[in-house]
């Protein structure tokens, strides 16, 4: 049985063994052919793994643009929503306090509210469809 543990052998091969233990492993390696064989196997595996040529990203392709879009988008939405709410509130106030005929106000208000309701329902419908869309992960 080897007095060198598996963990020690790994640390030795990975250059992570303290100096005092290093000599101990080297002494044992000089004595044990079984340990030499095991060390040679893992050393060879290390070299081959380190030599694996992995594909890199195609030239000029970076994830930054996509990342930037995703992290900047919520801020854009927030500004859009806040701005729209402020304008709607201000417009409604100006419209409500103006001297226009009440019948005209009701008719115009009905048209505007109708358009907003239709728009909201279409957006909501699309959103719900997107949650259950089986093809949403299919790459275009």
């Amino acid at each position, binding site marked *: 049985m080897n007095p060198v543990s598996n963990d020690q052998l*790994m640390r030795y091969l990975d250059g992570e063994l303290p100096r005092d233990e290093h000599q101990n492993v080297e002494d044992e390696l000089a004595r044990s052919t079984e340990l030499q064989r095991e060390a040679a196997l893992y050393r060879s595996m290390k070299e081959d*793994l380190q030599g694996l040529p992995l594909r890199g990203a195609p030239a000029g*392709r970076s994830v930054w643009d996509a990342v930037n879009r995703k992290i900047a988008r919520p801020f854009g939405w927030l500004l859009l929503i806040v701005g729209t709410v402020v304008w709607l509130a201000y417009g409604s106030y100006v419209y409500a306090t103006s001297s226009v005929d009440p019948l005209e106000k009701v008719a115009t208000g009905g048209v505007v509210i109708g358009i907003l309701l239709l728009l909201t329902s279409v957006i909501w419908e699309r959103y719900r469809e997107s949650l259950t869309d089986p093809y949403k992960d299919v790459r275009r």
Partner: protein
Amino acid sequence: MQPEVERELIRKCKGGDTRFYEPLVRAYEPTGLRLALGIMGNLEDAMDALQEAFVKAYQSLGRFDLSRPFGPWFFQILRNQCRDKLRSRRARFKVEALDARPASRPASSGTSPERLREKAEARELLWRGLERIGDDHREILVLKELQGFRYSEIAAILGIPEGTVASRLYHARRALKEALDEMGAEYP
């Protein structure tokens, strides 16, 4: 990237200015892609995981401790992202990440075409072996051999005690050897 520069960039990002995130993304993208490739096994899924990890890291910057380096923290997020993708079944480790082009390093004058072919076959075999071992084993081998991280860094990324790294590596290497044996390969 120098630690002081990195800290300053993160401080600016925490203030909400996304422009200062770009140098961080560009600095960690190559290493991150290599890590994701090793875990995912194919470029498309690796790029997706990398992109999502950068977004998550940005959204979590508020919790980031500025006294610590960004790298291990980000790689931990990336590793979790890769694992989530693999678990979700939308992605699977595929043997597509090996570069089939000839090595960029010039071959020594004594390297015969036969020897080069053997080397290429051995690499392909090794990669197929990696496909067979579990995600945990593959992950630690990628961190150690493909990324060259030290034990302390691996421990930080995986969130395990440093003393456990050697043992995990031993089991991963044994598993790879057994996978190669099962494939009928004479290794080494």
